[in-house]
């Protein structure tokens, strides 16, 4: 019997794919766009992402766990589908690549200011490639290990409670913000990653309640993000939070243990695991789509080519600002895919069901 992803592994995979680079800037973005008590905005984000997962679960149940490619190919001609596949894989490939590049640029800023960032990028890409060629089951197992290596860091939040003051939260909701629509879109991208569960469908164990794993992953992420943002709003003052470009780095640098301080360089390394999984999963999704066009291609060669392309593309933006702009547009596209693709699939499945009924 072929190996299947268990709900537990799906939970962790979804959570780890979702938690990414945005955590470095999230509290500041919430303060900047939404102002006072901006952390509350994470609650509607959680609800919307859960609704989106509900759409995905409809695809899973109506399609009886079939791969989304099979569903698409049953109703739409390949002439139309291939450009769509190329579009999907381009967005996912470059999105993953830019997330990696941003991590590298941040790492460079705090630790190696004059080293060529592309050397670090190459090291991360090689690591990602090694994982990518092993397939989804190995990725999910490695991810489980990475999960335990990183999840304890949320306990560090407890250390900030002595400096937390309710009075700094203020009773005002969403005052002193600006551009809330754009900000909302930007912040929502923090939740992206669950949409890739569309591609897990054929790998899920149909005897178990696998979709619950996706919900659970999204819930763990939401709880983690909400508690992190909440602590930040009571620890920093609003004006201060707006000025800190990377509040997470400041928090990490603030930690002092009796025997050691300035731990952030060490702790920053742990975030590599979170970023690595996000990058690998987006690349895996890209590879899955391309494989549909070239079913006979050797998977290792295909992955190497894709990673090679993304490495070359990552040369184009050189500053953090440029990378941020790329990530912004790509994340809009990825958000569009997250909602559009399952909607399209549900419509197709309805048409297919109707057709089947009329034949019967």
């Amino acid at each position, binding site marked *: 019997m072929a190996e299947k992803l268990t709900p537990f592994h799906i939970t962790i995979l979804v959570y780890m794919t979702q938690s990414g680079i945005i955590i470095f800037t999230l509290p500041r973005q919430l303060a900047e766009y939404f102002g006072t008590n901006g952390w509350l905005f994470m609650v509607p984000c959680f609800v919307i992402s859960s609704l989106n997962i509900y759409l995905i679960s409809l695809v899973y149940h109506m399609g009886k766990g079939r791969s989304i490619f099979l569903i698409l190919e049953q109703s739409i001609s390949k002439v139309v589908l291939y450009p769509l596949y190329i579009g999907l894989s381009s967005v996912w490939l470059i999105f993953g690549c830019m997330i990696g590049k941003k991590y590298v640029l941040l790492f460079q800023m705090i630790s190696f200011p004059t080293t060529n960032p592309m*050397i670090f990028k190459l090291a991360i890409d090689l690591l990602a490639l090694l994982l990518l060629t092993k397939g989804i089951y190995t990725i999910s197992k490695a991810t489980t290990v990475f999960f335990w290596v990183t999840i304890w860091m949320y306990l560090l939040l407890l250390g900030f409670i002595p400096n937390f003051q309710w009075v700094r939260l203020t009773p005002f909701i969403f005052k002193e913000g600006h551009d809330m629509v754009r900000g909302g879109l930007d912040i929502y991208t923090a939740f992206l990653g669950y949409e890739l569960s569309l591609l897990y469908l054929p790998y899920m164990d149909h005897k178990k309640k696998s979709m619950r794993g996706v919900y659970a992953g999204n819930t763990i992420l939401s709880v983690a993000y909400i508690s992190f943002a909440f602590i930040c709003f009571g620890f920093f003052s609003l004006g*201060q939070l707006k*000025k800190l470009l990377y509040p997470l780095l400041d928090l990490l*640098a603030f930690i002092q243990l009796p025997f050691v301080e300035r731990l952030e360089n060490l702790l920053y390394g742990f975030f590599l695991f979170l970023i690595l999984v996000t990058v690998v999963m987006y690349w895996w999704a890209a590879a899955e789509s391309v494989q549909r066009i070239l079913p006979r291609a050797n998977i290792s060669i295909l992955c190497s080519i894709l990673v090679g392309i993304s490495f070359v593309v990552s040369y184009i933006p050189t500053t953090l600002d440029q990378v941020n702009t790329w990530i912004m547009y790509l994340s809009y596209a990825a958000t569009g895919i997250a909602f559009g693709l399952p909607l399209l699939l549900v419509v197709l499945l309805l048409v297919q069901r109707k057709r089947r009924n009329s034949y019967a």
Partner: protein
Amino acid sequence: MRKLSAVIVLMFLLSGCKSDERILERLGMVQTSSYDLSEDQRLKVTSSIPVVNPESVSRRELLVVEADSIKEARLQFSRKTELFLVSGQLRNVLFGLNLTKAGLGNYLDTLMRDPSVALGVRVSIVDGDAGALLSKDYKQHADTGQYVDHLLEKEGGRNSIPQITLYEFSRDYNDDGIDPIAPIIKETEDHVVIEGIACFEQDRYRMKIPAADGMIFALLRGSLNQGEVALNLGEDGGRKRIVMFSSLGSQHKLKVIRSENSRFKVKISASIQGSVLEYTGSLRLQNKADRQELEKEISAKLSSEGNQMIRNLQQHHVDSLGIGQYVRNSLSYREWKSTDWNKVYPSVEIEFHPKVIIKDYGKYN
């Protein structure tokens, strides 16, 4: 073949960090920096770097330059020393009084921007010339920077002065309902002494609270779990009545009341518990009624000193207690925005109501 390619890849990757190589012996890790305004309105920067070389007689290297900005000073330092200067181990920044009167905003900005400077760097004010204090060698202490650091850490832990780091200073500076504070120290002949607490209006120094009143300030500002205070309760038959109230813990509450003519009234209450370790008056502590009498006297004394301090802060337009935060939170957003807090603050009626309970009175009757 696989192993060989792995080795080649590793060699290629590891060589990449050559330009950011740091060799400990060649690093000058700045531990304390001080900033003053020189006579020609330039910035005088003094940095103290611990020397790790066991053959060296001196335990630290001092660098002094005049420049137009903090980072320019660093470039000038670099020309003076064979060490590669880094600020990752910076523990303490001292600002001279002249500079604090002109405003610290820009310097704060530079320190906060540098990724190698952590939020936990201690901020202190020097009554006088900060560079002179840092440059001076104090007989009993090998390294002045470290001496000051330990002094502030110890006193801050006992709440007699606040523990202020870049985090607290920039937090309060960027909040619209509170003004920042910092400990203020002074150089004496053979010691560095804690003078008190410097109170700022925005980023400018305005007034000082003497160190002896530090505890009362702490009681006004928030809840405490340790501290001690000595109070002079007046004279009794020509003898001074001193009470030393120790191991005290305090629960702080602040209530904002709005009167009809939309003026604000603020009540700060503190429920204080502690032990009496010294008392030179005529009341007998083992006697319950006398003890209650003493509790009342201590409360009254704390109240009058606290209220006087509040008036003083209001006169100087410094909201170091963060009254504005509570007033803000008692209003609607529109009301708060239409309130010019800096103008309103001096006329707000603020009362301090301490309630003292003597937990125990030592082991002697």
